[in-house]
């Protein structure tokens, strides 16, 4: 009897261990995935909330960055960090003329116009990048220090997951500081609240828009490269994740940093849990949650009333 009870307990303990391990690995993956989403989407949240542009081409810029990073590492032989820097710089350089000649014409246009223009830009980016770099899956090899598991004392976690989480937190804090505490942030908020008045008071709104756009594209680039483990860089990347990014931003509430963070973590958890436990349902729960949230909070979880 006693031996049997002991065995039952051992099985129970083992079961609990397996259960805890599953919960833990789901949680780690969910948070890391959410953070990767956050880094990409926060840029879109800025363009949509502050500049009022529904930028469906956001993923296209992340894709450009992924292609540059992959090219830098595989063809030029640079390291991971250099590849990230190169891709951010490259993407910003590409985005400046696009902002100047295309986006500047659709600030303040109806949503449909913006959607069409940015879908057009997305198609062009997909066509042109694949013409130059070839239509294959682009890998961005991780450095050794990130691909090894890191021992946290009670569990080992893939280093890359921790790196992504840290990046997400740094981005969130940095942006918050930039918008709330710096002179540029004041100009940006003034321009958002009343562009005409800000202009009259000597704020160069065109420059503010251009700089914010460049920052948003830099974040897209950073997120695209760092999050390539979760959202692999492939020929139709910009189209495949276009909807995901847009949905995350509108769930969080455009323009809100905490909102975007919350939305990314919630949707990342729902998506990852769904994939672990019920993979045959695909994105079903993700979109069901999106519909529920958007119906209840039409301005997003933490969006401001307009």
């Amino acid at each position, binding site marked *: 009897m006693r031996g049997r009870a002991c065995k039952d307990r051992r099985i129970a303990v083992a079961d609990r261990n397996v259960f805890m391990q599953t919960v833990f690995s789901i949680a780690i993956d969910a948070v890391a995935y959410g953070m990767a989403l956050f880094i990409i989407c926060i840029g879109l949240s800025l363009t949509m909330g502050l500049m009022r542009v529904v930028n469906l081409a956001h993923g296209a810029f992340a894709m450009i960055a992924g292609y540059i990073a992959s090219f830098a590492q595989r063809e030029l032989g640079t390291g991971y960090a250099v590849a990230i820097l190169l891709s951010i710089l490259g993407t910003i350089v590409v985005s400046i003329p696009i902002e100047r000649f295309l986006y500047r014409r659709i600030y303040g246009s109806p949503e449909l*116009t913006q*959607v069409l223009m940015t*879908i057009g830009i997305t*198609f062009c980016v*997909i066509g042109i990048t694949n013409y130059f770099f070839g239509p294959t899956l682009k890998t961005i090899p991780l450095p050794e220090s990130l691909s090894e598991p890191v021992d946290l004392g009670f569990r080992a976690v893939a280093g890359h997951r921790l790196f992504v989480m840290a990046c997400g937190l740094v981005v969130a804090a940095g942006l918050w500081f930039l918008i709330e505490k710096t002179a540029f942030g004041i100009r940006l908020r003034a321009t958002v609240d009343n562009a005409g008045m800000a202009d009259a008071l000597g704020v160069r709104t065109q420059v503010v828009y251009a700089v914010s756009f460049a920052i948003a594209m830099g974040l897209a680039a950073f997120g695209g490269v760092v999050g390539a483990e979760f959202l692999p860089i492939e020929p139709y990347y910009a189209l495949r994740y276009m909807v995901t990014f847009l949905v995350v931003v509108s769930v969080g509430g455009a323009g809100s940093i905490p909102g975007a963070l919350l939305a990314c973590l919630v949707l990342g958890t729902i998506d990852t849990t769904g994939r672990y436990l019920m993979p*045959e349902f*695909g994105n079903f729960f993700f979109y069901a949650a999106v519909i529920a949230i958007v119906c209840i909070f039409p301005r997003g979880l933490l969006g401001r009333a307009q």
Partner: protein
Amino acid sequence: MRGSATSGRFADSRLLRDVVGVAAIAVAGAAGYWLFPDNLALLTRVIAVALLVLSLDLVVGYCGVATLGHAALYGAGAYAAGMACLRGVTEPMTLILIGAVAGAAAGLVMGTIMLRAHGLAQLVLSIALVQLAHEAANKASAYTGGSDGLAGFSPSPLFGTFVFDLWGRTAYLFGLALLIGVFILLKFVVASPFGMLCRGIKEDPVRIRAMGAFVFPVLLKMFVISGAVAGAGGALAALSTQVVGLDSVSFELSANSLVMLVLGGLGSLYGALVGTVIFMGFEHVVSAINPFHWMTMVGALLIAVVLVAPGGIGGLAGRLFPTMPAKGDDRGGRS
């Protein structure tokens, strides 16, 4: 409109113009039949998608509701027709009717959910709905065939005599007749007081509400009509190809149909047809060479349309020939 004589002449010229327009569609369709006898399957698909784009025009062009999820209605019609056909209802006209009813029901659901929101939330809801429908169709593989698609059904001959042949002749002519019938019906719908009310809502919903009209039921009604048209298109596609794939409920199809509509010109039924034919014709030719060239080209075209010709090809034609009566009541809303 000073006197009844003027208004009578105006109505006459409008009627004449619509008769000429419908005749032109019939002639173009017949020309397609004689000129491309080897590509009738493609042409039938063009007709099916044209019905989808027409239905999208009702919602986007006439009501001003931006949606990127209209393929959900098309797919509902396609799957309903396919499933009914598998279960023994094989009469083609009945199948089209079943598709239209299913599309209308889907339109009712989609409209009820989407029309509560405005602006960005509305757009996101439409995308989420079509993605949800896509995942549901994928999951319910017992009914829909999942990612393999729904296949293995064959409709019985049209009117008991015309078999759906291998070359797609029957399907094409049937589709053409359906398109012309639907087009004439929609001409009446958009010219009716109800259609005018929809256009008024597009221009200024607050003012319409102040006039004492209820906005939501009117838009919902248009959504249901639009769903019926899209569902009929889906059913036609199911009948002609005898397979229903997951791509018929996809974001890609929704986005493409919107692109076709904008290319042709929003708020004009002719624009919807012209846009579809041009888009799918070019797609067929260019994407056979290199699909990425095709994407670049469509992207550049879209940007050009937004920057240069917000009224699409129809609007451009109206601007080039301002004396033509073509833009009388069909003036395309600026996108």
